[in-house]
């Protein structure tokens, strides 16, 4: 592994951390506390993120509904996840917590609604 530079996000110090590999072991430098080391190792070995976005809604009082992954997914799958979601339209009504896609891309994470969108009645 070549060396990687990170900025720690745990506190406002924002330590510049360098991670290198030595004989199969990760070496973390530049951190000023333990939390920095743990963060760096998880970032290097398995970076994960919550993905949030909006989907179009049919017949809703709003044109979109905001959604999130119910848990973090691997960082490298973010764009794949977005691509998959771009093809999806939801029918109103939608309630907070509704599962819109189950187990997206076999990540174990569901796509859930993060807001309510009521049905729009034709006048």
């Amino acid at each position, binding site marked *: 592994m070549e060396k990687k530079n*990170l*900025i*720690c*996000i745990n506190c*406002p*110090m*924002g330590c510049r951390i360098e991670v290198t590999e030595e004989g199969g072991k990760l070496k973390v430098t530049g951190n*000023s506390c333990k939390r920095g080391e743990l963060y760096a190792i998880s970032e290097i070995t398995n970076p994960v*993120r*919550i*993905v*949030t*976005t*909006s989907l*179009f809604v049919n017949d809703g009082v*709003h*044109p*979109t509904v*905001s959604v*999130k992954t119910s848990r973090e997914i691997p*960082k490298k799958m*973010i*764009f794949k996840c*977005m691509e998959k979601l771009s093809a999806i339209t939801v029918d109103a009504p939608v309630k*907070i917590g509704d599962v819109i896609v189950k187990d997206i891309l076999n990540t174990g994470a569901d796509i859930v609604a*993060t*807001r*309510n969108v009521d049905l729009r009645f034709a006048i």
Partner: protein
Amino acid sequence: MHRDLVIIGGGPAGLAAAIKAREEGIDDILVIERDIELGGILKQCIHNGFGLHIFGEQLTGPEYAQKFIDKLLELGIEYKCDTMVLNITDNKKVTAVNTKDGVIEIQAKAIILSMGCRERPRGALNIPGSRPAGIFTAGTAQRFVNMEGYKIGEKIVILGSGDIGLIMARRLTLEGSQVKMVLEIMPYSSGLKRNIMQCLDDFGIPLLLNHTVVKIHGKERVGGVTIAKVDANRKPIPETFRYVECDTLLLSVGLIPENELSKNAGIVLDKVTGGPRVNESMETSVEGIFACGNVVQVHDLVDNVTKESYLAGLGAAKYIKGTAGNGGREIETYGRNGVRYVVPQKIRLDDMGDEVNLFLRVDNIYKDVYLSVSDGGKTIYKVKKRIVAPGEMESVRLKKDSILNMENDKLFVELIR
């Protein structure tokens, strides 16, 4: 129409204040919101990271807002959406308008101002160039993309590294736009580290510190911008001028408390925060008019908005019930030596609880300093800070006992190196 309490603005500040006032026994409350729904700016902040302090979990903006909306409904608090407050007077008469009721006049016993803040637009920056389409404030872009479902541009340059700009850099990238760079005129970003990492570094978007936009090009639509490095006095250096092709420019250059209504009522504003000067109960200079949230000072964490708003709700409830103290000894707070401002600006010893929370912002990045509170001579509180930055609000909790024996009626909050 008469009401005990009128709350102007149904964002997180107004909602929390309403809930607290009801819990304190005020029944006759009306929340007025100009948008078609409650929740304020949170409705467009669809990313997660809200409520870590209050709920211990990472909620998205709409989820955080809904918790308070549900509570408001459960308590049966009356609200009017799609209704704009046009004016308030110092004797607490509120004028509002909507399409159903027309113009409404409400005589309130107490008012809580919770109108939030607004973004500094292009006009506040004086960037030369033409007036093409494709220039947005970051918050407007956020609403268009997250709530209305529009794509706002293909090639985007962001000016200003405030949190909303950083978050939009990620959002637009995910939506398939190319965010070319984020420019920041200061030598440091005003955004949170977390956002720089997860919104820029994750996607390889460069952050150019000490840089600004000196010209906007394009007639119908933005065609590009000229950017430049700035010197120590923030003056653009001509040798560094560079043209960057783009069709969209996003501005994320700061927020200003929304205070037109406050001005009309003759409320005294603080020159630094831009919001009303308030006391320990979040009461403004006009008796019975309280304020909370971004209308008082621009917060970076909504949890702090909620806490501050509970104070305002409590203060208004006491005022209406006539159980507020008589003020007693009054202490003014001042920021100096690196501390730009302190909220509240006034503490009345008879009305404060067992302790008071002072919020403050510093004027630069400082490492290894002491944050100190003194009466000019005696130090009342001192804490070591490894780092303080303008982008992160600091707070100090003072016990009543510690200020009772102050020699002066002035409290100085400052940095000591």
